[in-house]
């Protein structure tokens, strides 16, 4: 039964691809950016670029919140973790991110008390169970994750917990998109908007892209057909001279987002004047910090962190990959010095990173295409 479904999907995919190709103006090329790790996976796994005409290229943008944390901030977190009174708690995908002195994983192996948690609420529980220790939660992620940190802080506040704090590294997606749009390196024709971030922020925040930059945006679901349909919707807009925000994923994403979530973020956090993003440099109003009212839960206020800027390793080209200027395989160390087992930069460490996605799927696709060619050649 699944085989039949896949076959039907392939038929529909080809039909959509034909409609997309029909909209391509002769001699013109199109570049669309997607920022969502889940979209990158779908694109690479199903080889969606092979369905598209040569004129269309897909570029992966800075949608990996782990990947954009600069090494200096990782060092700051390691510094906090190394305090004997601190239990550092972190999501799994942060564990192998390299700072200048190694990763959480390395530090843990050497005896530092760093514990993996699934949820900030687990971190809260550890704080309740260890009243004599300071529990710090390494808060990372875009607006998809910030509400969870916010709700956890509100809960800690109402319980009167005094040994729980947050090292806040939440980043916001819109300024990153704006930085890309303002960068001369890249000329984009439109965006495939992120899926689950949009369940929180809704579709309105993307309106400036259509209004001020005259580029279309289509918020997309995660199935291959969702992405192909979204590309079709982008092409329809371009061919009729429109630039609007459209929601292809309306079955999950509400236009206004999640108001409760946005209120929780607003209550506990505020925008930093600026924040350094790996590969993109300093971007204003692009990251969150804990509000004054919750200062007792702000790890940066409670403890001092070095705050040193650390340059990325010379060989690392994560910056250009994050900006979409380089494809993963164009990085000089991709697959050689830099692999998932021995990562140099975060694009390879994080499962959402473009390099990790391509490493896991891209090479499989090349083999699949080669096999198909061989099959077709058989009499």
């Amino acid at each position, binding site marked *: 039964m699944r085989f039949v479904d896949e076959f039907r999907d392939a038929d529909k995919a080809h039909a959509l691809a034909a409609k997309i190709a029909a909209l391509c103006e002769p001699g013109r090329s199109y570049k669309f950016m997607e920022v*969502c*790790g*889940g979209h990158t*996976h*779908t694109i690479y*796994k199903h080889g969606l670029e092979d369905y598209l005409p040569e004129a269309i290229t897909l570029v992966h943008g800075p*949608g990996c*919140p782990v990947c954009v944390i600069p090494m200096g901030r990782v060092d700051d977190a390691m510094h906090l973790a190394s305090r004997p009174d601190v239990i550092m708690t972190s*999501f*799994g*995908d942060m564990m192998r991110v390299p700072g200048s002195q190694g990763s959480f994983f390395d530090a843990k192996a050497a005896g530092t008390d760093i514990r*993996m*948690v*699934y*949820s*900030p*609420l*687990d971190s809260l*529980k550890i704080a309740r169970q260890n009243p004599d220790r300071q529990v710090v939660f390494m808060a990372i*992620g*875009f607006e*998809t*994750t910030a*509400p*969870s940190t916010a*709700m956890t802080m509100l809960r800690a506040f109402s319980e009167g917990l005094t040994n729980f704090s947050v090292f806040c590294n939440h980043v916001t997606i819109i300024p990153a998109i704006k930085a890309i749009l303002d960068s001369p390196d890249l000329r984009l024709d439109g965006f495939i908007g*992120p*899926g*689950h*971030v949009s*369940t*929180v922020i809704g579709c309105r925040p993307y309106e400036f892209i259509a209004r001020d930059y005259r580029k279309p945006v289509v918020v997309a679901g*995660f*199935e291959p057909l969702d992405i192909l349909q979204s590309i079709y919707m982008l092409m329809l807009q371009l061919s009729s001279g429109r630039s609007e925000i459209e929601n292809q994923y309306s*079955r*999950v994403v*509400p236009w206004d987002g*999640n*108001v*409760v*979530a946005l209120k*929780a973020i607003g209550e506990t956090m505020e925008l930093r004047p600026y924040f350094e993003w790996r590969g993109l440099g300093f971007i204003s109003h692009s990251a969150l910090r804990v509000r004054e009212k919750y200062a007792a839960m702000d790890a940066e206020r409670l403890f001092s962190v070095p705050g040193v800027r650390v340059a990325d390793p010379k060989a690392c080209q994560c910056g250009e990959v994050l900006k979409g200027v380089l494809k993963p395989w164009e990085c000089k160390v991709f697959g050689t010095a830099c692999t998932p087992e021995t990562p140099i930069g975060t694009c390879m460490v994080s*499962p*959402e990173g473009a390099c990790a996605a391509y490493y*896991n799927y891209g090479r499989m696709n090349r083999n699949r295409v080669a096999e198909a060619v061989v099959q077709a050649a058989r009499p």
Partner: protein
Amino acid sequence: MCLGIPGEVVEIHPEQPDLAKVNVSGVKRLINIGLLSDDPPKPGEWVLIHVGFALSKIDEAEAAAAMAFLEGIGQAYEDEIAALRGSLIE
């Protein structure tokens, strides 16, 4: 990962209405449904879960599609389920 995973609401916690027991691929765990306080889910409904919080309600068809997608991702999804399994939200 920034992805939400689908889970079916089994029951609302009798003493803490902000918590619900969900079934995610056979793993039953308590998660926080406080972000859906404007329209709380009922047993039998499906939600999109991210780091222990329900982000939005989804219908069963979308839940099945999301599950198929996540199973296709392989390791990252297995890691997420393993992490959820280790979670003890109360």
